[in-house]
Every structure is written in structure tokens, then in C-alpha cells.
């Protein structure tokens, strides 16, 4: 595996699969949109050739499955061509979602780390709190989202904060669990060494446990940032479609603007990929700064 060449072993297979997916997408778009187009043509008494019919199925304003180029066109129009402050700009909506994601992610990470530190140091906390943290992973927390939004809205807290609360809620679990694992990762022999140095609990914590937990922290932060984005998007659903990727999805669903839905979906995916990539890059930088060698 170490002698993998970039092009034949990585880029070529991925590119091939992507091409196949796009091809399947086009075929599916033609097949799924064809009945409606046939209907329209019959009503309008339009007689078209085979090729023109296919071209028309791929150019409907509200297709059942928009063709990739339609989505790409919509994405291009709503990001590059439109001014950033416009209500239709995807960059604007993306920014709204991103800001609550980041606030929620920051709070969630902080909370997760604090809980992990508490669990590692207080025995009673570990045995009483840890089972609940694990159990809460099995609970569909996202179901609480509309209630958080509406209840906080009822007491006058609207806008960014309620969404950030949901993001916090979703992102602190992975961090807490990962950090507990990380802070516990030093082996007995290393802890014993610290004891022979007569290190205090605080010294052991800062000089051994924290450095050992950093890789775990970044791994769980990758999960957390993705969860945080999902939380922000779902949090935008019940606010009555004001702004954000989630509201774009909801508005698209209301008015059957399928191309808009797909464009918003792609925008959200790009956002997620970029966020995870940023966490990955920061992890690499921190790892190098701490003297880690590339694995």
C-alpha cells in the first residue's frame, strides 16, 4: 500500500466512479422526468424527435430529478453571479448556517472537554454520568430541535442562538467520549513514570494526559463538526424558513423548487466537506508542531 501511485490508484478509480454516478444521474433524470414531459407535449400538441424530447426532459423548470448541469447552473447563478447580500445567494444562506454551526461547535467542544476532564478526575462522576452520556447517543436528539427553537423563541431568544444550542447539543457528545478515551490513553507505565518524578495531578494532566489526548480530540472534532452542521441545518427547519441552508431546503420543498433543493443540498455538502477538511488540516499542523511524525 505504501507504494501507491496517486493517479492510477487514487484519482482514476474515484474519477471513474464519479463519472458512473453522473451518468446514472442523467439516465435517471431522463427516465423520471419523461412521463411528465410526454404529458406536457401531448397537451400542447407538440411533436418532437427523440433527441429533442430528451433535451426537453433535462430542461424542465421543476423536474422530478434535476439534471446535474441544471443544479450546477443554479449553484453558479446563486453563488458567483448574485451579490452576497442577496436573499437568494447561497453564500448568504451558507454563511447563516456556518455561523451558528461554528458557535455551536465551539461551545460543544468546550463543554465536551470540560465534561471529559471531570469524568477522568472524579470517580463518582464517571460511574454516574458516563452511562448517561453513552445512553444519550442512542436517543434521537435531533427530535428535540423544533422544541428548542420554539421554546427559546417563546421567551424571546431567536436567531443564531437557538440553532447554536442544538449544534452544541449534537457536538459535545463525540468530543466528551473521545476526550475521555484520550485522557485515559496514557499507559500505566507512563503514569508510573510521572509518579516517580513526584508529579502532581495537575502536572500529570498538562504534561502527559493532555498531549496524549490531542489526536483523539481532533478525531472526535471531525465527527462533531459534521454533527454540528447537521444540527444547524435541522435547527433552521422549524423557524419558518428565514435564512440558512435548512430554510432553503424547506422553501424548496414547499414550492417544489427541486433544483433549489439540490443546489442547497450540494452547498451544505461542500460546507461539511470544507469544515471537516479544515479540522483535518489543523490536526496535521498541531501534530507537526507537537513533534509528531507522519504515520
Amino acid at each position: 500500500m505504501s507504494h501507491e501511485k496517486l493517479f492510477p490508484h487514487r484519482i482514476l478509480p474515484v474519477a471513474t466512479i464519479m463519472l458512473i454516478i453522473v451518468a446514472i444521474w442523467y439516465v435517471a433524470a431522463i427516465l423520471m422526468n419523461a412521463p411528465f414531459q410526454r404529458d406536457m407535449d401531448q397537451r400542447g400538441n407538440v411533436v418532437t424527435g427523440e433527441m429533442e424530447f430528451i433535451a426537453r426532459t433535462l430542461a424542465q423548470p421543476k423536474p422530478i430529478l434535476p439534471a446535474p448541469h441544471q443544479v450546477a447552473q443554479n449553484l453558479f447563478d446563486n453563488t458567483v453571479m448574485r451579490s452576497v447580500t442577496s436573499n437568494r445567494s447561497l453564500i448568504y444562506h451558507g454563511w447563516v448556517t456556518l455561523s451558528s454551526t461554528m458557535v455551536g461547535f465551539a461551545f460543544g467542544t468546550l463543554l465536551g472537554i470540560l465534561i471529559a476532564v471531570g469524568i477522568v478526575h472524579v470517580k463518582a462522576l464517571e460511574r454516574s454520568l458516563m452511562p448517561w452520556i453513552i445512553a444519550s447517543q442512542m436517543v434521537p436528539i435531533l427530535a428535540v430541535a423544533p422544541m428548542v427553537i420554539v421554546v427559546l423563541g417563546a421567551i424571546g431568544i431567536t436567531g443564531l442562538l437557538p440553532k447554536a444550542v442544538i449544534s452544541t447539543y449534537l457536538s459535545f457528545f463525540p468530543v466528551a467520549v473521545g476526550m475521555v478515551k484520550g485522557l485515559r490513553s496514557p499507559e500505566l507505565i507512563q503514569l508510573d513514570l510521572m509518579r516517580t518524578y513526584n508529579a502532581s495531578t495537575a502536572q500529570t494532566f498538562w504534561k502527559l494526559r493532555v498531549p496524549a489526548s490531542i489526536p483523539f480530540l481532533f478525531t472526535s472534532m471531525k465527527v462533531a463538526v459534521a454533527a454540528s452542521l447537521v444540527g444547524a441545518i435541522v435547527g433552521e427547519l422549524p423557524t419558518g424558513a428565514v435564512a440558512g441552508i435548512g430554510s432553503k431546503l424547506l422553501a424548496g420543498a414547499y414550492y417544489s423548487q427541486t433544483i433549489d433543493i439540490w443546489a442547497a443540498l450540494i452547498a451544505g455538502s461542500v460546507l461539511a466537506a470544507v469544515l471537516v477538511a479544515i479540522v483535518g488540516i489543523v490536526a496535521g499542523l498541531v501534530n507537526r508542531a507537537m513533534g509528531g511524525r507522519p504515520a
Partner: protein
Amino acid sequence: MTAMNKARLHFWWQSWQGALALLLSLAALATLPLLADAPEPYNPITMFSVFLLTIAAAVCALLPLPGMLVAITLFVCTHLSAAMLIAGLAGNEGKATGALYMLVAADWLLAWRCVSLLSSVRTRSKSLDGLLRLIIPAIFGAWILILWEVATRGAGIPFILLPPPSSIAARIATSLPILWADVQQTIFKAVLAGYILGSGAGFLTAILADRFTFLRRGLMPIGNLMSALPIIGVAPIMVMWFGFDWQSKAAVVTVMTFFPMLVNTVAGLSAAGTMERDLMRSYAADYRQTLLKLRLPAAMPFIFNALKINSTLALIGAIVAEFFGTPIVGMGFRISTEIGRMNVDMVWAEIAVAALAGSVFYGVVALGERATTFWHPSNRGG
């Protein structure tokens, strides 16, 4: 510092909760009454027994008695007195005074002491250890409910903001048929169908990807990327394609559960070691035999990991997909409509049911894992 002094200091530190609880309950006694101008205040016998129980528990926590005895006394006394306090709060919402909060705080501190005593118990008996494993988090959970109840009823927090747990429980009891219908619609139809389809398809694709290296090299980066994406966003599209009923929710669940299964199974299929593979080769085992007898069993922990992740994802997917349109039944539908009508207790009831269903679902998968991967080091015990 002499050894004697150190020991005494240690003793006080060990039960600072007891000392603080004693101070708090005495302060509560000095600042009576517990309820300000309430129509039905506590009767003297209840008052007397609440104070007696709390103070007795606090003193008991300070005395050098055997740990197990103290823990049991604390457990009984604090929960009895908390139960009596809560029973008197119903009907007196918003009337609680500082004395009542101090008393509850004292009980809470003592329960904390009880938990830390129980946590430090070292036992060899497996059944006692299992019991402790259940009781300690149970006490913690119970106190979250108790504090929640006291805070909401005592301070008279508006019902819409946060209903007390007792009224949520009452709501669950009175609307069992509705909740059951929602569970059937969302879990038995949408979640199960989507879960089986998505996990099954992910599994089969992983086997294919394992057979054809080119496919694996192409699919894995995409699969890894997809598991970070907000797939939940396909919900409106699926509702458009498959209609309002459970089929669209099952489709969302299918898409959401596909990728974790694919990624984990492919990882699991490479888990079997070189030695074992060489052994299979020396037996002249063909691909199918190696897959069925060595590599799939070795992949089981990974597959069950995916099944566990998927059990949570499936519930979330089905519930959120219902926000985009449903027939008039289903957990997500109930949550989004009842919150619109400000029936917050019904929403909480639905969330409690969803939590229960999620835990049961996860538990069943975990039991399946125990039965299938009993050979794995993490399950062997000892």
C-alpha cells in the same frame, strides 16, 4: 502537620457533602416555612419526618461508620424525604421558599455522597458489581428528574417553557394509544424497513467492493466523505418522490444507513490477519470459503459497530423526514404539530418514547453482537 490532624482533615474532606448538608438543613429549619402563603402547606408530621430524615442522613454521613451502611442509609433517607417534598409541591406551584430549596440541596448533596461511596466499593461478586453498575447511574438520573421537578414546580416555571417530569409521565399514561400508533408508523414501518434495506445494501456493496479492488478504491473516498455530509437534507426530495407515507421516510433512512455500513464492512473485511489468511490458503480454501469462514466472522465487530451507529441514524432520519410532510400519524409529525399547538408535555412524552425506543433498538443490536461475537476479546470478559 501530624498524622492525626491529617487523618481528621481527610475525614472531613471525605464527607464535606455531609457537613454542608447538615448546615443547609439547619439553615432551612431556621428560615421556615417551606412554602410561602400556600393554600395547602405541608402538615406537621411530614415536615417533622422530612427534617428528621435529612438531618439523620447528614449526621450518618459524618460518622465513621462502614461505607456500605452509610450508603444504604443515605439512599433511603434522601429519596424518602425528596419524595415527600415533591408530593407537597403539587398544587403549590411557585410558592417554594429558600428553605425548601436548601432542604432539597441538602438531600442532593447527601445523594452525591451516597453515589461516591457506592463508586468506591470494590467487589469481587459479579452480581453485586452489576447491581452497582445499574444503581449508580439510576440515582444520578433520578436526581436530574427530582431537581427538574422541584425547579419547575417550586419556582412555577411556565408550563410551556419546561413542563415538570410528573406531568410528562401523566401525559404518557393518558395518551398511550396515540403514542403507540406513532411508534408503529415511525419505527415499525419507516425505521425498520429503511434500516434493513440500507444496511443490507451497504453490506452487499461492501462485499462487491471487496471483490473488485478498483471499485473499492473508487468508492471508499466517496463513502468516507458521504458519512460526514448532511444526508438528512435528502428528506424533502424523498418526500417528493415517494409520497407522504412511510415509504419516503424509509428511503431517507436507507440512504442514511447505507454509507456507515459500507465503510465499516470494508474496513472489517480487511481485519483478518495475514496468518489466518495464510492458513486458509494452505487449506486450499477458495474465495467464498475464506470469506464465509474467516473474513466475515472477523468483520463482525465492525459490522455491528455500523449497525449500532445506524440504529441511531435511522431514528433521527425517520423523525426529521416527517417534518417535511406526513400523514397525520408518526413521531416527527406529532412533535412538529404539538409544538405548534404549544402542547409541550406531549412533545416531551414523544421524546421520552423516542429515547426509550432508541435505547431498546440499540440494546437489541448489542444483544445480537454479544451472541455473534462472543469470541472477540472485548466481549470475553476477565
